[in-house]
């Protein structure tokens, strides 16, 4: 004999018994994770923007660029040790990445559990655009790209001849290898896609949607993605076209 409460689906996961510590409780919920994702997303957005702007120095000349790189390391001295402030930033950045990725991964698993069988006759998408549907892929690829990028330009294990403290030269060397330049361009296009959905979606996740400015959320996301893509892709192109070259 099946009563209503015995009928149908069993819970896929337990939520109504909560951990005592409210932060864990909060992060334990999907909506909480989405909020974390949005906030870390904002941090990452901020970073890529500043990073892109900073890199514009390369259009001046090697010294400006390198001094900028050096300057970043000296912020906060003498209160903070050399590169102290930078490490604080890095720490925040690393945390943001960790949480962003962890929440993305756990939510993805949750969603797969909730839709074990897909549509055997195929399905049609009406509202969800390509960017939205590929967030996971664009995200993962961007993730790997960052690793490669760090090896290449921060740790100097990317294969190009690398001199610590000379980002300008390192960059030019790196981008002079066409395949690398291509990788950068593709990666940044994907990042653009990721941001195109992300920068729109984060308002919804944080409950900031409002009919009055909903269409502006779209423009904002488009604009942001465009700026990042144009800025970041211009660098490898500039090097390939010789617009930016090693100092004589």
């Amino acid at each position, binding site marked *: 004999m099946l009563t*209503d*409460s015995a*009928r*149908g*689906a069993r*819970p*896929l*996961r*337990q*939520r*109504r018994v*909560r951990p005592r510590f*409210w932060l864990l*409780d*909060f992060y334990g*919920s*999907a*909506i*909480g*994770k*989405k*909020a974390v994702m949005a906030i870390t997303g904002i941090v990452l957005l901020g970073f890529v923007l500043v990073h892109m702007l900073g890199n514009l120095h390369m259009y001046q000349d090697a010294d400006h660029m390198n001094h900028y790189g050096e300057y970043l390391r000296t912020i906060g001295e003498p209160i903070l040790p050399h590169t102290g402030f930078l490490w604080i930033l890095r720490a925040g950045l690393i945390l943001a990445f960790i949480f962003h990725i962890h929440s993305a991964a756990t*939510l993805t698993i*949750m*969603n797969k*559990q*909730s*839709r*074990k*069988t*897909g*549509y*055997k*006759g*195929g*399905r*049609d*998408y*009406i*509202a*969800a655009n390509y960017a*939205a*549907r590929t*967030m996971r892929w664009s995200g993962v690829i961007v993730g790997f790209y960052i690793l490669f990028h760090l090896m290449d330009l921060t740790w100097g294990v990317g294969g190009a001849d690398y001199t610590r403290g000379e980002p300008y030269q390192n960059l030019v060397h790196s981008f002079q290898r066409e395949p690398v330049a291509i990788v950068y361009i593709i990666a940044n296009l994907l990042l653009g896609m990721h941001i195109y*959905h992300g920068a*729109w*979606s984060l*308002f*919804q*996740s*944080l*409950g*900031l*949607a*409002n*009919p009055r400015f*909903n269409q502006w959320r779209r423009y904002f996301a488009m604009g942001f993605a465009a700026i990042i893509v144009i800025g970041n892709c211009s660098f490898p192109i500039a090097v390939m076209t010789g617009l930016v070259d090693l100092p004589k």
Partner: protein
Amino acid sequence: MSLKLLLKVWRQSGPADEGHFETYNPDDVNEDMSFLEMLDVVNESLIAEGKEPIAFDHDCREGICGSCGMVINGVPHGPKKLTTTCQLHMRNFKDGDTITVEPWRSTSFPVVKDLVVDRSAFDRIIQAGGYIAAPTGSARDGNEILISKPTADLAFEAAACIGCGACVAACPNGAAQLFTSAKLAHLNLLPQGQPERWSRTVAMVDTMEEYFGSCTNYGECEAACPKGISLDFIAKMNRDYLKAKFRDRRYTHKVDTSDAGG
């Protein structure tokens, strides 16, 4: 004007069976028929052939009870916007079309038979807090509570949800955010709903997450919803949930009322 169609319908004898598509070529389908009347015709001929008819949920056939619902050519409730399956008429199809029909797909909507699924998980979400506790007879005069027309209208728009489950069926994550947020918006917008606002929000969201996926803001649910429930209600739910989580737990914890009235 009559239509020749190729129907591919999901047949599944029970939860255990893994199911398959069967193909039918109904003749005498007429464009003034509703989609369900078309299936009635198919069923009549199946019975004549001694084959078991296609099982599908339906009751009012007026687009209000939320019983009906199937995925037609990959879209819940079929091609016509803001229309339930029972209100979808065959004139929305062309002569010679192939039509694929499948049940809602969600781990928490197990298939009962053919196109019939079990949606009791929705009832479970309402049980968690989708109400305003108002013991019979305790009410004061209806006009003592003033509710501005815009508020009443917005609450109504949220309350228009018919609980059909198309939002879950449409969501690639199998998320029930649109359904849950609609009920929350209906109750949380009204003055009568304020006392239980935070505990209701937490309890309903937590229950929702026990059965359904999370929202990555695809918007497919809104597109499939026959009652045009807006995505903004999901944002409102997120906002209320976040607010609730940053409050003192004594306000947000739901106390058990199992001996109510006893």
